[in-house]
């Protein structure tokens, strides 16, 4: 096999350098971040913002978005605020948050993501839903439900493909919680939880009185479901 060909020679004792072509997306991301920081009327925007140019982020809704320091938003992510939105601020993203690629964050009331949250790819967070109860009209003309509010606690990790949907009242994910891949979350969970499945349930939680992580009772049920069926 061909290694270390003539175009970009890498010395056997030295690390291969980064692909120079990767400078192009890095530069466009940097430029785009500077552009939107200068030109978009955000409610607040911190330093070291990084937003990929393919993100769908309308200038019209920027006054309703608060971005903290060192926020990273990856490719193809959509930050949406509905025209029917209520209140002053609808999306609040804290410091050091990482919003992965292909996410949809769609707010009608308030979606608050606290500090140090990491969000994987293909995640959906929405605090409302389509109304569907009028049987005489297509759902697309029925507008949104009143919706609720979502708060994601600091230091949490939201895995790949998670959906967090709140149709009413408040949905709070406590701090340092883990939401496992492809979970569908529709209700609140306390701090230090591990949340899996569709619909989401608690499988593991930190017990502050003993200082250890405990498997929740639901975990036993999960073992029963799986045993004997997957060797």
């Amino acid at each position, binding site marked *: 096999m061909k*290694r270390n060909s003539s*175009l970009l020679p890498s010395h056997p004792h030295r690390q291969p350098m980064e692909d120079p072509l990767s400078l192009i997306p890095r530069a466009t991301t940097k430029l785009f971040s500077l552009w939107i920081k200068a030109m978009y009327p955000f409610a607040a925007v911190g330093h070291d913002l990084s937003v990929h140019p393919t993100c769908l982020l309308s200038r019209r809704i920027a006054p309703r978005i608060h971005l903290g320091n060192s926020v990273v938003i990856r490719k193809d992510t959509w930050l949406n605020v509905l025209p029917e939105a209520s209140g002053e601020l609808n999306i609040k993203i804290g410091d050091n948050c990482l919003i992965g690629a292909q996410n949809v964050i769609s707010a009608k009331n308030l979606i608050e993501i606290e500090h140090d949250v990491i969000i*994987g790819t*293909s995640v959906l967070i929405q605090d409302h839903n389509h109304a569907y109860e009028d049987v005489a009209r297509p759902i697309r003309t029925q507008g949104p439900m009143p919706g609720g509010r979502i708060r994601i606690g600091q230091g949490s990790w939201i895995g790949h493909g998670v959906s967090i949907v709140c149709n009413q009242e408040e949905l709070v994910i406590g701090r340092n919680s883990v939401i496992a891949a492809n*979970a569908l979350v529709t209700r609140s969970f306390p701090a230090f939880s591990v949340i899996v*499945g569709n619909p989401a349930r608690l499988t593991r939680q930190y017990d502050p009185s003993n200082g250890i992580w405990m498997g929740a009772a639901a975990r036993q049920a999960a073992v029963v479901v799986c045993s004997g069926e997957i060797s």
Partner: protein
Amino acid sequence: MSTGTTRRARSQDPLNLGPRLLRRLYTEWLRRTYPFASMGSKVSIHHTCKIDRRKAHRIKLGSHIRMEKDSSLGISLQPEQEGDPVIIIDDNCVIHWRSQIGAKNLIHIERDVLIAQDVLIVDQNHAYEDIHTPIADQGFTEGGRIRIGEGTFIAHGAAIICSQGELILGRNCVVAAHSVVTRSAPPYSVLYGNPARIIRQYDPLKEEWVTGPVRAPQTELVP
């Protein structure tokens, strides 16, 4: 406005040549400049794919592999670390849009595996057990190893996650859309759900597909 019912297109849209040429050029660039452990012939990689050149020596690619737009091969090891490849993709695999493979120990995808869109395959996880630190700063768990048997199909949005030990999917398995697989499965299984369970399997004694997992007597499935 033409209806297009009587006329049939004789050739492809010439506008398709642009992206095809770009893909060809980018693949050639990868072949000539990236220090892959190995790379077979007729590989086709879209230019939006994410592969870190500094870690390319831990990736081994077979022949006739297609990697579509925005798919990524990630390695959560330091670039200085030398060692055996941690991502091995055998011949004729297809990795579709936005699928991610993230390896720390070993992810081996055998030949003829079809991976659909938005699939996640990782052999490690974020550590979360220190409650005083944000999960983002806690690094990764030890993780396990994953082997995906030949001819397997992994449908849209599925996640295959191995936190510890070894996860092996046998040959010609089907992982249904949006399933979450965290345990091994024998060959010719259909896995479905979150968490995934086997809803259908080929019974080699009856020589037919049966609903649910094949139960006792335990038989040796054709490897």
